[in-house]
């Protein structure tokens, strides 16, 4: 750390000198919520780390469109898929410059070697950089990339081929994710030769719009604009993350003009922000879902009628008012409405305690039964208050004769025990990684996930799973859309979950800020922003 900090300090001076002492520097200040865990996005899974590393400093071969989930060209100008879906060929962009730093002056532009380095480091156990820094390639693992990719081949300096083990339509979306950020192989070689390879992860050099200038843990991160950025230099000259953990204080700073933008406001502050003349409040639907899962391996939840009855017995509108306080919308499908293939024709169960009682009687429980209801101990983006939610559901169910005992454990313990299936009913949720429906449905409701416990309903439906697997191996988006829509109908009818809500995310920005687009992934990207006086 000491070496890192010292190098960073000297780098600051270099960066400051490089930009010159121009007085009219446009500085954009973002009041971020926490320190990043580090600056190599391949190691981490938190949005906080991505906001500070992959978003400002790196590019991927393909990118998510700003403000959306579709895939657009990044460092690859174009790509093609072989007919069998097993080979992806990327044509790389030319004249892309890496960041210039005092301690590293790249001698060449971005090329295929950088792609091979960045992916192989994570893929191959034998890669000289694989064990450097002693970190796990967490997201590479989550997305199962080690099993998806067979090998990466350099055809020429500007053409790269990815050979897959089997056709997998989610591959391309995964390549737009933060872990697939492209590092400089030249910088890596330099540090390896110097015997300090771990410096690569501390002083990152990418091709992105901003160059890291200074980092003070828990205090501030400073970036300067990358003047030779391939999309053109950003309109702002300096980007500062002022790390401010408390949401009320972030709001105070925004109000006073100490920052231009803040994430994660207190829900109770949103009304005041809306009426504040200095602040614009942006809002978008979170790429998430909060749900209650029935353990379908345990009686009586192995009975479809019971699951449907409890769906009907739950007043979701009331939950939305009380728990989300307007920052959410009722969910009827396991995927959020902003995602492609969302089936809007699915009809949700309507709240009707009488009908629920009848269904329970039909299922053989005229007097109801007793069960447990697990509630998370923590606030999550998809569920601001699980305990309050559990109380409301408990009341609803009591009206149809089902007595639910609320159970809660410490967060780690909670995840662990529910993954092992100790619960009868439990609450959880999911935030999308790559904008692909597979990333919700297969990960949370597929048969393999029922084995591993990621599928907390332990629900394995042959027909549903078959559709998902077919969609996974089909490259054509229209065909996939139809398959996922069909799967959602089966899901609703089988009712392994009560789909509760998709949250609405708010981001207040000061009035003078223009050009900012909210990301459905909840990421914060400041390349396109400008400040108008």
């Amino acid at each position: 750390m000491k070496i890192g900090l010292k190098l960073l300090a000297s780098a600051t001076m270099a960066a400051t000198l490089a930009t010159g002492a121009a007085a009219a520097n446009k500085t954009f200040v973002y009041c971020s919520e926490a320190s990043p865990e580090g600056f190599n996005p391949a190691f981490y899974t938190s949005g906080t780390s991505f906001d500070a590393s992959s978003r400002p400093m790196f590019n991927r071969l393909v990118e998510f469109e700003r403000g959306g989930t579709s895939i657009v060209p990044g460092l690859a100008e174009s790509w093609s898929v072989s007919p069998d879906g097993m080979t992806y060929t990327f044509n790389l962009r030319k004249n892309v410059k890496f960041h210039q730093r005092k301690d590293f002056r790249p001698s060449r532009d971005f090329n295929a070697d950088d792609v091979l380095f960045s992916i192989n480091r994570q893929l191959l156990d034998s890669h000289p950089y694989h064990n450097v820094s002693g970190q796990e390639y967490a997201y590479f693992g989550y997305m199962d990339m080690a099993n998806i990719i067979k090998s990466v081949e350099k055809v020429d300096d500007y053409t790269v081929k990815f050979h897959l083990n089997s056709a997998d339509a989610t591959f391309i979306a995964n390549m737009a994710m933060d872990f697939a950020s492209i590092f400089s192989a030249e910088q890596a070689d330099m540090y390896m030769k110097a015997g300090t390879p771990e410096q690569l992860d501390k002083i990152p050099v990418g091709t992105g719009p901003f160059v890291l200038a200074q980092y003070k843990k828990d205090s501030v991160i400073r970036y300067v604009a990358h003047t030779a950025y391939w999309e053109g230099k950003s309109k702002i000259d300096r980007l500062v993350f002022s790390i401010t953990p408390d949401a009320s204080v972030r709001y105070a700073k925004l109000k006073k003009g100490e920052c231009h933008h803040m994430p994660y406001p207190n829900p109770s502050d949103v009304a005041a922000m809306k009426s504040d003349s200095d602040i614009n409040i942006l809002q978008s639907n979170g790429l998430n879902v909060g749900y209650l899962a029935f353990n379908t391996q345990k009686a009586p939840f192995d009975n479809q009628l019971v699951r449907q009855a409890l769906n009907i017995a739950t007043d979701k509108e009331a939950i939305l008012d009380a728990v989300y306080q307007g920052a959410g919308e009722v969910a009827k499908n396991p995927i959020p409405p902003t995602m492609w293939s969302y089936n809007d024709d699915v009809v949700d169960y309507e709240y009707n305690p009488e009908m629920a009682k009848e269904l329970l009687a039909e299922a053989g429980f005229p007097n109801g039964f007793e069960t447990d209801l697990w509630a998370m101990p923590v606030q999550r983006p998809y569920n601001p208050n699980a305990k309050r939610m559990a109380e409301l559901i408990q009341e609803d169910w009591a009206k149809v004769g089902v007595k639910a005992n609320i159970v809660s454990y410490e967060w780690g313990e909670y995840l662990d025990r529910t993954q092992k299936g100790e619960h009868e009913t439990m609450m959880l949720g999911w935030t999308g990684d790559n904008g692909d429906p597979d990333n919700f449905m297969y990960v949370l409701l597929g048969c393999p996930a029922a084995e591993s416990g990621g599928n907390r309903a332990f629900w394995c439906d042959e027909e549903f799973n078959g559709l998902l697997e077919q969609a996974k191996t089909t490259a054509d988006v229209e065909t996939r859309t139809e398959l996922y829509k069909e799967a959602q109908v089966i899901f609703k009818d089988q009712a392994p979950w009560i789909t509760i809500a998709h949250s609405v995310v708010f981001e207040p920005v000061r009035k003078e800020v223009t050009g900012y687009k909210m990301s459905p992934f909840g990421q914060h990207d400041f390349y396109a922003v400008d400040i108008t006086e």
Partner: protein
Amino acid sequence: MFQFFIRRLGMVIPTFIGVSLLTFSLIHLIPGDPVTVMGGERGFSEEQRQEIEALLGLDKPLWQQYIRYVGNVVQGDLGTSFITREPVMDEFLTLFPATIELSFFAALFAFCVGLPLGIIAAVKRGSFFDHTVMTISLAGYSMPIFWWGLLLILFMSIQLDITPVAGRLDVLYWVDEVTGFMIIDAWLSGEEGAVRSALSHLFLPSIVLGTIPMAVIARMTRSSMLEVLGEDYIRTARAKGLSKFRVVMKHGLRNALIPVVTVIGLQVGTLLSGAILTETIFAWPGIGKWLIEAIGRRDYPVVQGGLLIIATIIIIVNLLVDLTYGIINPRVRHSK
């Protein structure tokens, strides 16, 4: 004096062992393990989990982990953070100056305000001033730090626009880290206005953090002064014809200070624990916030190492306080 010092020092070693054992077992007793917390909703496959556990040294039995931990501590190695993979000591040294800077100014505020208030209240016992001071100090003592901090921000920063909201320095100043103490670094940077900016950022957090110690010092000084002022030697001094000021400040205060110094020593603990909240509110990059986050993430090395260092500091401060008695009051040094 030397013997007294050795005796006090000897008591430090068992305290250390106790602290290390306590921090180790407490953090391991909290349910939930770091790997599960890291995985979140996604979770890890069994293979990944084993890999990570081996990476973090969590695959060994608990007693082996403890022995290895103590062994490393003896060699001056506090381990590396599970999350950032940085040595605990380096992270601590990066963040600690901020906490010291804040605690120093908070203590200064507490002392400079609390002591005179206590003395005047004692001298003017039963007066309106006395009652006011005691009411204020009771309020100060019972004030929730979080609420008090936000209140001050809203009033001083937003309403009156006198102080900045949070942080250590205006973001427009690019000050390089040399000592870690912002005031000194700002001064070294030579940037115009940087020192003033650093001082203005210290203003609110110092008051918030210093409020409880200030109240404690004021009350302690008052009651201790009252006791001393009733002593025979005070009457003698007055009878000798010394001025009231001299009697109070020289004969009174010096004797009354002993319990006050003890309290100041004990307040170091309060300052460090109060720093956790104050640092969170004012986005102050110190060790309080660092430890709280580490507990949430089950970052064992940081929690163990951080607590051990803080315990050491508190032990040393209390040792120094004990030694100061000897200087202030010769009876302490001679009687034992």
